[in-house]
C-alpha cells in the first residue's frame, strides 16, 4: 500500500475512532456510577444528530442553538428513560438489565424512524473551510479537527470532574458501595440519574459532530453503540483513558483494513479485534480492574 493512502486511511480512521471514543465515554460514565451497561447508548448518538437536523431544517434554527437544544433534549430523554425504565428493575439479574436496554434501543430507533423519516440525513460542516493537504495528496477535512478536539476536551473534562469535584467522587462512591454512600448522605438515585443524563448528552454531542462527515439514519445507532462498547473494552473497561485509546485504535485498524481486505468485511473487523483482545489480553490494553473481576 502506498504511504499516502495509508496516511489518508489512518487519518480518516482517527476521526471515526474519536467518535467511537465519545460513545465509549458515554458507556463508562454510566458504568462508573451505577454498574449498569446501557446498550441504548448508540441511539443517543442517532437521536442527537437527527434532532439537530430537525431543528435546523424544519424549525429554521441556526447551527449553535439547534445543537444546544438537541443536546439538552437528549439528556432529558436519558434522565427520563433511566427514571421510567431502568430504575424500577435495577436489582434484577444482569440479563434482564441488558435486555431492557436492548428493548429501549429498539424502541428509540423505531420511534426515530417514524418521527424523522427513514431517509439518511446529514448536516453542513461547522465552518466552511477547504480541506487541508499534507504530503502532496493527503487531504484532511477540517471537521476532523473538531471531532478529535471535542473528544480530547471531553475526556479531560470528565477526568477532572471525576477526580476533583464532589459529583465525580459521589458517582464513584455510589458504584463502589451503595449502602455506604447512602449512609454518608449521597443522593444515590439522583447521582445514577445524572450519570444517564450526562452520558446521553455525550452521545448527542458525538452525533452532532459526526453528522457533517457521515450520513445518519434512524437505524445507525445500534452498530455505533456496539462498536463504542467494543472500543471501551479494548482500551481497558472502566477507564476514561482506555475508552479514548480503544476508540482511536479501533477506528484506525478498521479504516486501514480496507486497504488489505474487501471493504464489505469492515464491519466485522471491530468484533474480530474485540474477540482477539478478550482472548489474548482480557484486561484491555491499559488494564481494567472491572474486567479482571469479571473473568475467572
Amino acid at each position, binding site marked *: 500500500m502506498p504511504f499516502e493512502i495509508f496516511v489518508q486511511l489512518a487519518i480518516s480512521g482517527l476521526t471515526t475512532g474519536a467518535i467511537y471514543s465519545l460513545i465509549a465515554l458515554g458507556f463508562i460514565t454510566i458504568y462508573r456510577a451505577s454498574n449498569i451497561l446501557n446498550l441504548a447508548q448508540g441511539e443517543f448518538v442517532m437521536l442527537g444528530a437527527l434532532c439537530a437536523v430537525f431543528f435546523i431544517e424544519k424549525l429554521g434554527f441556526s447551527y449553535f442553538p439547534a445543537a444546544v437544544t438537541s443536546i439538552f433534549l437528549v439528556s432529558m430523554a436519558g434522565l427520563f428513560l433511566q427514571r421510567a425504565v431502568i430504575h424500577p*428493575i435495577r436489582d434484577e439479574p444482569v440479563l434482564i438489565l441488558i435486555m*431492557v436496554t436492548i428493548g429501549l434501543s429498539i424502541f428509540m430507533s423505531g420511534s426515530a424512524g417514524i418521527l424523522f423519516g427513514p431517509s439518511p440525513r446529514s448536516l453542513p460542516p461547522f465552518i466552511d473551510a477547504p480541506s487541508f493537504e499534507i504530503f502532496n495528496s493527503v487531504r484532511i477535512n477540517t471537521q476532523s479537527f473538531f471531532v478529535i478536539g471535542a473528544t480530547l476536551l471531553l475526556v479531560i473534562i470528565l477526568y477532572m470532574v471525576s477526580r476533583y469535584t464532589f459529583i465525580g467522587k459521589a458517582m464513584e462512591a455510589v458504584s463502589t458501595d451503595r449502602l455506604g454512600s447512602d449512609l454518608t448522605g449521597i443522593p444515590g438515585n439522583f447521582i445514577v440519574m445524572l450519570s444517564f443524563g450526562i452520558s446521553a448528552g455525550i452521545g448527542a454531542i458525538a452525533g452532532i459532530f459526526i453528522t457533517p462527515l457521515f450520513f445518519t439514519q434512524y437505524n445507525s445507532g445500534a452498530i455505533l453503540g456496539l462498536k463504542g462498547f467494543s472500543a471501551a473494552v479494548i482500551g481497558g473497561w472502566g477507564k476514561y483513558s482506555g475508552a479514548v485509546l480503544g476508540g482511536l485504535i479501533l477506528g484506525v485498524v478498521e479504516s486501514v483494513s480496507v486497504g488489505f481486505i474487501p471493504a464489505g468485511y469492515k464491519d466485522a473487523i471491530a468484533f474480530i479485534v474485540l474477540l482477539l483482545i*478478550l482472548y489474548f489480553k482480557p484486561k484491555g490494553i491499559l488494564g481494567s480492574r472491572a474486567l479482571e473481576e469479571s473473568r475467572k
Partner: protein
Amino acid sequence: MIKQNYIKKIEVYFIIIFLLLPLLFDDIVYNHIMVIAGIYAIAALGLSLFLGYAGQISIGHAAFFGIGGYSMAILSTRFGLPSALSLLAAGLISGLLAFIVGKPILKLREYFLALATIGLVQIFQVFATELTDLTGGVSGIYGIPWFSIFGFEFDTSLKQFYLVWFILYILFVYSRHLIHSKYGKASLAVAFNEDTSKTIGIDPSQVKLNFFVLSAVYAGIGGGLFVSVLTSVSPESFGLNMSVIFVMMVIIGGMGSLFGTITGAVLLTWIINWLGEYQAYSLPFFGIILILFLVFLPEGIFRGIGLRWFDFVRTYADENWRKEIDK
C-alpha cells in the same frame, strides 16, 4: 436410584389436544405460524438450557441458528444430500463451531459475555453477506427442497406442523431428562456459584462449554428446519433482532422452565406476526412490549403473574382469606 418416568398422564391428554388443534382450525396461516413458532421454540429450548440452567448469557444464538440454516441450504442444494442427513449435519456443524468459539468466550462473564456473543452475530452476518460464492450474498439461496424422509415430502403446512412439533417434543423430553440428571444438577451448581461448584469437583468451564455446544446444536437444528420450511435463506433473517427474540422467549416463559420456554416462543411468535400488520410502527411497539414484559414480569409470565396475584390477594383480601393463604 429409581428410574423416573417423566411422561405424565396429563401430558398425554395435552399432547393429543394439541395435535388435534391444526385439524380443527385447518387454516393455512394458523398452521404456518405454529410451524414457525415450533422452530423458534427448538432454538429457544436450547438457549433456555444455557441461560436458565448454566446461568450464562448469550445474545448470539441467531448466529448458530443461521449457521444451521446455511449448512442445511448449502448441503441440500449444492451437494444434493438427503434432507434428513443435512439436518443432522446442520446441528453438528453449528455445535462444532460453538465448541471452537466457546472455549475462549465462555471465560467471560455478564456484560462481556453478552458483548462477545453479540460480536458473534455481527461477524456471522458480515460473512454470510460477503462470502458470495458460498452463501449467495445478500439475496441468499433459493429453491431449497422441502424436508423429506424416504421419499415422503413435508410439503404442506400441516405436515410440517407435525414434523416440527414431533422434533420439538423429542428434544423437550431429552432436555427434561438432562436437567433431572446429574449434569443438570451440576449446571445449576455452576449457575449458583462457580467457585463453590469447584469445591465439589465440578469443572465449571466444562459444564458451561457442554451446555453452550448443546444449545448451539438445538439452534442449528432449528435453523435447518427454518430454511427447509421457507425454502430460501438470506442473511437478514439471522440478525441481532433474532437473537433478542430468542432470549425474550426464554425470559417470557420464565428462566429455567422448559415448558415455559415453548409457551414463550408461541406467544412471542404470535405477537410478532400481529405486529407485522402495523408496518413502520411494528418496531417501536415491539420495543415497548419487550420493556413492559421485562419491567412488570421479569420472572416470566407464569411465575410473574402468580407472584403478582399472590401479592394482590395478600394486600386486598379479607382477614380470613389471608389466614387461609398464609397457612
